[in-house]
């Protein structure tokens, strides 16, 4: 098949003793020493069960119920003797919205804001190393916690650096408020230093955006922005504030009510459509639910499970729907699509009713639309009317919040006994057993004893008790994570689905760890993606954010290499890449580093990383040419999967 283009200059089997920080001399050989001592020593900051964690939970609750906090401590109550300026209004507005932490990077036009931040000690500012990291961290924070993530950047390059993260949040419907500074309003449009038309740039990749040049507009704009970001289909809202608006005197109060006549999301599904859906479900013989991100966003996991159990309907997931249902549940199938499980794609292609909940028929899910789910009638529930009929024509559209629609639908569902579906579910179980057996390298080795990535991922899931928040980067690592980590807790899986942003993993895990300090957090990243945002290792150290990084290092842009092997006849241009000595890099940042190069070393390295009080990196030297199978080639349908040429082990 492929050429072994290892131009890294390093032998993949090298296990030189790495060592982390000054007091750490951990290697994969330290397996015995590190195991067992881990659990009690993990100290997430702020710790689970502490007053701070409780305050975060209380804030989350308030945000979810969409009530503005009425009591905002004034400057006088804070004992600060100076006039209130726009920057104060920004801080008050953030507090009023329940923000406890945000990610930012200062700059010239933001200095008025940073000048007053010290007067608001309740606001934790995390200084990132690149603004893209701030946006991804806000994104990861929002997905892990359910709250609105907030990031902050200065004008010009700071603002443009945010854009990738804003676009990522837009395509994955993540509630985020991105704040940028801009030059004083008298210089707007004059090509001033660090001036760029950032509202023009973010317009197509935000749910809404604002340019604020009057300090008295700040309270209203921030209240609207948070409401828009988290209400209905969530999304990023960008606020561009000029320097004079931050500096000018502000007398405006924070509004009690909002006037947004053009923003009326519809939450309750139409009763007639729900009745139609109940009829379809009653008539179907081979129904399947396809659960998307919307199930998690609307917190409808309990309703999903109830529907599945009541009518004995198996549940497939989209990539972002992974973790919407405990994967050990007998009706949970796994994820669908281009790199989804074969048995799931077979179920979709043979079902007679597809119940699509909070998903948008992405091309990675449907493949070639004319051959998608050819025997199925489709019920499509989504809160965004524009998603109905956008990519796939459906029989029963229901516009509404998944949780409310399911709540209204459930009483109309006739219970179905497992026996009535025995033939159908039995067939699926057979397919499932077959597809899980095929590409699964449970021994830990892919070929010739080389470390298999799917094994590493599954061991991380098991070691963390399937309760950790696991954040993937993009590429092969993302698919292995979604397939093999074994998700049981809602929102424990975080992935860049729509935009597919390499470099997302580390900063998003940083945000997720801050958003759910009570949960262990792993970033599973490739060597390509980590080299895009590795500078945030320093942020982890400076703010003691206890992210564990599993680096799946195949010295390749693995998904690129896979496509080149399978689609471009082995023309491996630019898919081999050098990486640094990762243990030395970790050491240079002050991050504890560990390495595993064989299946036997994996558990020890994971345990050693978990035992560290703070961030840690595990360098897994995996096979270079392992592919993710099955794979649906671009332009093909879900029935046209490429599969691994699997050699039976010789007896």
């Amino acid at each position, binding site marked *: 098949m492929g050429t072994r283009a290892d131009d890294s200059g390093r032998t993949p089997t090298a296990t030189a003793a790495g060592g982390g920080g000054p007091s750490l001399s951990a290697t994969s050989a330290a397996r015995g020493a590190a195991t067992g001592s881990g659990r009690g020593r993990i100290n997430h900051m702020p710790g689970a069960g502490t007053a701070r964690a409780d305050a975060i939970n209380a804030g989350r609750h308030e945000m979810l119920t969409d009530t503005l906090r009425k009591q905002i401590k004034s400057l006088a109550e804070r004992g600060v003797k100076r006039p209130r300026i726009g920057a104060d209004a920004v801080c008050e507005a953030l507090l009023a919205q329940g923000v406890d932490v945000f990610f930012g990077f200062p700059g010239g036009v933001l200095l008025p804001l940073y000048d007053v931040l010290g007067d608001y000690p309740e606001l934790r500012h995390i200084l990132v190393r690149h603004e893209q990291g701030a946006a991804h961290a806000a994104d990861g924070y929002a997905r892990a916690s359910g709250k609105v993530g907030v990031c902050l950047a200065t004008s010009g390059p700071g603002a443009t650096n945010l854009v990738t993260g804003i676009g990522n949040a837009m395509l994955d419907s993540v509630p985020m408020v991105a704040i940028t500074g801009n030059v004083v309003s008298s210089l707007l449009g004059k090509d001033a230093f660090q001036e760029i038309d950032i*509202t*023009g740039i973010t*317009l*197509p990749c935000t*749910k*809404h955006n604002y*340019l604020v040049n009057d300090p008295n507009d700040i309270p209203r704009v921030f209240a609207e922005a948070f409401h*828009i970001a988290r209400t209905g289909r969530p999304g990023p809202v960008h606020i561009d504030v000029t320097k004079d608006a931050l500096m000018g005197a502000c007398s405006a109060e924070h509004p009690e009510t909002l006037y*947004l*006549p*053009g*923003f009326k999301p519809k939450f309750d599904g139409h009763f007639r459509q729900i009745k139609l859906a109940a009829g379809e479900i009653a*008539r179907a*013989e*081979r129904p399947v639910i396809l659960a998307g991100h919307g199930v998690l966003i609307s917190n409808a996991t309990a309703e999903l499970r109830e529907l599945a159990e009541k009518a004995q309907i198996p549940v497939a997931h989209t990539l972002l729907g992974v973790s919407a249902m405990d994967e050990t549940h007998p009706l949970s199938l796994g994820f669908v699509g281009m790199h989804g499980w074969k048995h799931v794609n*077979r179920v979709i*292609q*043979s079902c*007679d009713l597809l119940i699509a909940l909070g998903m948008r028929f992405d091309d990675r899910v449907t493949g070639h*639309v*004319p*051959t*998608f*789910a*050819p*025997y*199925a*009638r489709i019920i499509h529930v989504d809160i*965004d*009317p*524009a998603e*109905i*009929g*956008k*990519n*796939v*024509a459906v029989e029963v559209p229901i516009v509404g919040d998944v949780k409310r629609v399911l709540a209204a639908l459930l009483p109309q569902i006739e219970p179905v006994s497992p026996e009535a579906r025995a*033939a*159908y579910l039995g*067939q699926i179980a*057979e*397919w499932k057993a077959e597809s899980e057996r095929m590409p699964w390298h449970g021994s830990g080795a892919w070929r010739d004893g080389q470390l298999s990535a799917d094994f590493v991922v599954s061991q991380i899931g098991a070691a963390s008790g399937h309760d950790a928040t696991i954040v993937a980067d993009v590429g092969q690592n993302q698919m292995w994570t979604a397939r093999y980590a074994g998700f049981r807790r809602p929102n424990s899986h975080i992935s860049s689905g729509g935009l597919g942003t390499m470099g997302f993993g580390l900063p998003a895990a940083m945000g997720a760890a801050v958003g759910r300090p009570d949960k262990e957090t792993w970033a599973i990243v490739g060597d390509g993606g980590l080299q895009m945002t590795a500078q945030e290792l320093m942020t982890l150290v400076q703010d003691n954010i206890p992210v564990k990084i599993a680096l799946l290092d195949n010295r390749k842009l693995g998904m690129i290499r896979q496509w080149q092997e399978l689609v471009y006849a082995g023309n491996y241009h630019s898919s081999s890449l050098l990486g640094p000595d990762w243990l030395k890099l970790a050491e240079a940042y002050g991050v504890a580093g560990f390495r595993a190069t064989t299946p036997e070393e994996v558990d020890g390295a994971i345990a050693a990383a978990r035992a560290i009080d703070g961030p840690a990196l595990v360098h897994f030297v995996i096979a270079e040419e392992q592919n993710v199978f099955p794979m649906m080639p671009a332009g*093909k*349908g879900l*029935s*046209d999967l490429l599969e691994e040429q699997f050699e039976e082990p010789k007896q």
Partner: protein
Amino acid sequence: MSPAGNPGHAPDQASHAAPDHAPHPAPTHAAHHAPAHTAPPPRALPGRGEAHRHVLVAIVLNRPGVLNRVASLMRARNFNIDTLAVSHTDQPDVSRMTITLHGDDVLVEQAAKQLYRLIDVLKVQDVTSDPTVEHEIALIKVRADERNRGEVLTLAEMYKARVVDLAAESLIVEATGTEAEVDALIALLRGFGIKELVRSGTVVMSRGAGSIEEAVKR
């Protein structure tokens, strides 16, 4: 996988030929959506129907950038606008846009739904099949001297157009009417030589007592 007694259910496409992919596992159930021995028809792709002209009215908040938002969305979503006319309404904070575009019904409905996603958009209505008054205005600078001026004036009169400027070598015709009527006049005047042409784009209003704007009035 497919049970032996049930071979006819395998879809008929070449790419589906492998028996492994045969969908119907349970022959005991009546496959009521998929009759035996026929492949299912391909799933329809939205927006690939017959394209014809649609007229949309959008009521929007009169805020800076709203025209940019609408235009940017139409460009980003790959909808081709034929004409776009924007103006104030009787409410100071509300503007009205008339958009004409070509596409099938599903595509235009999708455009309207995408417009609704904009926070500044209050209402969108497809008035294509409603009884409406539809007009646009065109100013046409036509080459005309004393020899053929009379002909131009006659044509203009037949189309109820007015001459609003007169010079030795040219005149300006102001025409109002539906897009088709203006098109027809322009075609006739082209023979004389059109020096300059500007059209306002269609504006439209529903006949009868109903009002799109009243629906959004506070």
